[in-house]
């Protein structure tokens, strides 16, 4: 059994106070501690972005990959080492934007990886530009005239690719539900994606 303390690193989170990523981090550490998976058998692949910065705060085997590539790296790990539990942490930009082709490939393959998307509808580490999930019409730094594209909705398009995969949406604010869904995603056999609805405390004002 792993304790939450053992899953911590010497580094304290660097997110903005009040960031919903704290809730995802806490939920993940609790779920890993409660699970029977030993830390040395856990590999977390982090995307680039605010959520990906979780890499320094969780003590497991990890890859802090490139923007958009976390799912592809995770698939390679799982293909070569099916004995490992492989988790992906990324944001809406990396998973649904830069890395969309890899998400589609992973869903088609029903790759046994667990993807957690910290979806705050913005590119926040780069200070607030539109992402693939930004609502139509929203004015952001890169779209001051308003977003003209339809947003991508993971829970709609992923099951259309492969109805065998597990996809859920949950609000980070509902902590009990979030923690329950994290555990469910980890226990699922096959591809699982949990879309965690978050609010960006620094740049989310643009969306309201």
């Amino acid at each position, binding site marked *: 059994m792993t304790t939450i303390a053992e899953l911590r690193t010497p580094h304290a989170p660097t997110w903005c106070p009040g960031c919903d990523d704290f809730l995802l981090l806490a939920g993940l550490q609790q779920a890993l501690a409660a699970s029977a998976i030993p830390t040395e058998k856990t590999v977390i692949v982090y995307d680039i972005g605010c959520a990906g910065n979780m890499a320094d705060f969780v*003590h497991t085997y*990890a890859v*802090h990959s490139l923007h958009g590539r976390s799912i592809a790296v995770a698939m*390679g790990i799982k*293909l*070569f080492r099916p004995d490992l539990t492989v988790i992906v942490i990324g944001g809406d930009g990396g998973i649904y934007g830069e890395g969309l082709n890899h998400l589609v490939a992973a869903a088609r393959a029903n790759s046994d990886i667990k993807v957690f998307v910290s979806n705050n509808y913005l590119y926040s580490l780069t200070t607030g530009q539109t992402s693939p999930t930004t609502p139509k019409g929203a004015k952001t730094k890169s779209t001051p005239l308003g977003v003209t594209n339809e947003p991508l909705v993971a829970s709609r398009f992923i099951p259309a690719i492969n109805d065998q995969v597990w996809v859920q949406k949950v609000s980070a604010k509902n902590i009990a539900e979030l923690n329950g869904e994290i555990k469910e995603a980890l226990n699922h056999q096959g591809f699982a994606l949990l879309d965690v609805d978050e609010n960006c405390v620094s740049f989310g004002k643009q969306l309201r």
Partner: protein
Amino acid sequence: MEKVFTIKLAGPAGLGIKSGGQLLSQILIAHGFSVHDYNEYPSLVRGGHNTYQVTFTTGELFAPHHTVDLFFSITPGHWQQHLKEFTPNTLIAADEKVAAAPTTGHLESVPLKDMSIEVGTVIVTNTICVGLAAFLFHLDPEICHAQITQQFGKNAEMNIKAFDAGWVYAQKHLSAYLQSVNPPKGVANRKLVDGNEAYGWGFIQGGGNFYSAYPMTPATGALHFLAAKQQEYKLHVVHAEDEIGVASIASGAAFAGARAAVGTSGGGFALMNETISYCGVTEIGMVFYLVSRPGPATGLPTYTSQGDLLYAINSGHGEFPKIVLAPSSQLESFEFSALSLDLAAAYQLPVLVVSDKFLAESAVSLEDLSQKKVTPLSVEVVKEGDGHFKRYALTPTGVSPVALPGTKGAEFIANSYEHDEYGYSAEDSETTVAQLEKRHRKLDSAKPNLPKAVLHGSPKATKLIVCWGSVAGPVLEALRLLPAGHPYAALVVRTVWPIDPEIEALTKNYPEIITVENNQTAQLTTVLRSQINFHPTRVITKFDGRPFYPEELIKEFT
């Protein structure tokens, strides 16, 4: 010196130009000949103008020749663009009534199509040509039949009929063109293998176990080869969604302990560039097999080029160590494939193996690579950690200890950000400099294991030819054919990055230095000039998508 012969088949795609040529080569190898093949084909599936040539001799051979002794135009109109390859003795067997004969050579109308229909189908036209050639070159029909049986399986009977039809026709109508050659005695145990297959065997014998690729000519042969072998040799072979996925997936497998490689050509390699940089900083060792074709962009997809050397050396953003190897023969494609996996594992960096269409898709007679064992470098991995594992420990060699997931207490982050010894992200100047310097030291540590440049020729030579990669074949063949006492030697550079400073000493005493490259801007020449005192007196380049032929180099050298 033993005479060298060349037989060329030409015709539209879809009529077995390549398989006919390969059959002929296999038959010649079974007789004990040395063989060097070369094929040209446009980027389409049916029609067009395809050629497959087989150059062979009883002795040593380094490259295909330009001059053709026996030419087959399988359907009408496929000989006219080859006039420069004909000599007064060339026999051109063409299935057409020709109004204007070629100015050089003898054209004979041979009813190939009618004969094939008599046998049963037009797709055996190629085998009829092989039968014709076999008669004219005094080959042993029993050996030929055995090879046909081996290659064609259930279609062997019809192809033996076709072979015999060609043989009998040549006996009846073409015996004036009987060649003077004695097939060597004793059957050598050699195989016909191209550079891609040789690379694939090197991957297998070198302990490779994860290969991913996206189809791209001329690297696709390696994917096909390894995909077909995946069950027998327990390989993971993955055709991923795009070249970014290909490289990323392989990097994940390599992190998890695989000996991993990816294969592509220039365009796909461009997509993989971010992964090369990422492997540099995360110190994930993996191999990039780059088989060049002429660019820019889609370029000439099915032709050859050495135009990606500088791109390979400079691939990936930022500054990090990488090794770039350039095999100069099909055998070295095998050797460097195995070696690159070792270097990637031992020094934890990206290793590039740069080939090209000429090397990768040209087949030669080689020892049986399925039986050729290599001894891998031993690479140590950590067996247990104390919970504070320094994956990026600052060491004198620059090489830090490696742990694989599953090892208790050695958890770490393979971090694409600059990082400290544990892998945690760091931005301070001391850590940044220390890690950059540590990584750079790995190049010095790797040096004793990098293939040295090889000098061919007499110590009395006064003129030095410097070349790399596939150009070595035609250069060595030209030197072999030059009259005794010629003043040339050749230096083949095999590690194209980092440049071995000893190349300066190897080259400086020659009054004349000639570089020969299959690209427009003499890219190795540029690299050597930037790294050592190197002053070529002449630069020969060729960049029309075709390889150098020994005959054209001899003209340049005399």
